[in-house]
């Protein structure tokens, strides 16, 4: 069953923490950024049951501005030795403002490759795209990047 934005919004209405973050203070863009951060962490916690850690080991590279939402390039890589003791199991990508928020899940195998991948995705509107990496020790690393698309690529 695809994870729709409605599912997430319904869950948010039930959760009290999300209500507070739904009304950002007017004016300052920093407040908006913090709100987006809260929303993102909240989203990942609800999806995975775990609290992720913002990490600069995980790189989600996407254009800041892009003329179409139909085929936005996405490069994803993580600084990891990919040994049996220290590797990333999978990286999940979400677009929280899309009608269906799950984008992809990349599954890696230690010693058989490097954790680096590229693809192209659809975005419905300008938003933060979120990546969550599950490490072999169970830790969750996350990062996000803002992409300003000019058209809705989901319709």
């Amino acid at each position: 069953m695809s994870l729709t934005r409605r599912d997430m919004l319904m869950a948010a209405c039930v959760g009290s923490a999300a209500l507070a973050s739904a009304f950002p203070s007017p004016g300052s863009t920093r407040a908006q950024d913090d709100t987006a951060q809260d929303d993102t962490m909240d989203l990942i916690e609800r999806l995975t049951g775990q609290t992720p850690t913002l990490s600069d080991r995980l790189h989600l590279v996407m254009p800041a501005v892009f003329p179409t939402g139909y085929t936005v390039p996405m490069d994803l890589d993580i600084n990891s030795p990919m040994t049996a003791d220290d590797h990333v199991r999978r990286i999940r990508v979400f677009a929280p403002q899309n009608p269906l928020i799950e984008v992809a899940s990349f599954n890696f195998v230690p010693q058989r490759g490097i954790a680096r991948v590229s693809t192209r995705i659809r975005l419905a509107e300008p938003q933060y795209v979120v990546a969550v990496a599950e490490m072999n020790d169970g830790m969750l690393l996350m990062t996000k990047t803002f992409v300003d698309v000019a058209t809705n690529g989901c319709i």
Partner: protein
Amino acid sequence: MTAPKPRVLVPSAAGKGEVIRVKTIISHQMETGLRHDAQGQVIPRKIINRFVCRYAGVVVFSMDLHEAISANPFIEFYLRATESGRLEFIWEEDGGGVYQLEHQLAVA
């Protein structure tokens, strides 16, 4: 719709332990199930939902695709050349369709 056509760009030879880049694409509408036709009926979802790469029979990379992946899904990934063997690329579609390609990799 014509049959989805997969394509792969991968070196045919590599040094042992070398990291090789694999580029794949498959022609596919990736119908999201969110669009409507001229009569107002919902066009049902039909997407490639999974991609798997096997190297000498072992899965070395896989990807679960959802509706937000663009049409004609492009996937670029990196493998370590460990031994000479067969690389298999498999795309699975909603409804059970499967598309495959194979390449031989010679590792020095």
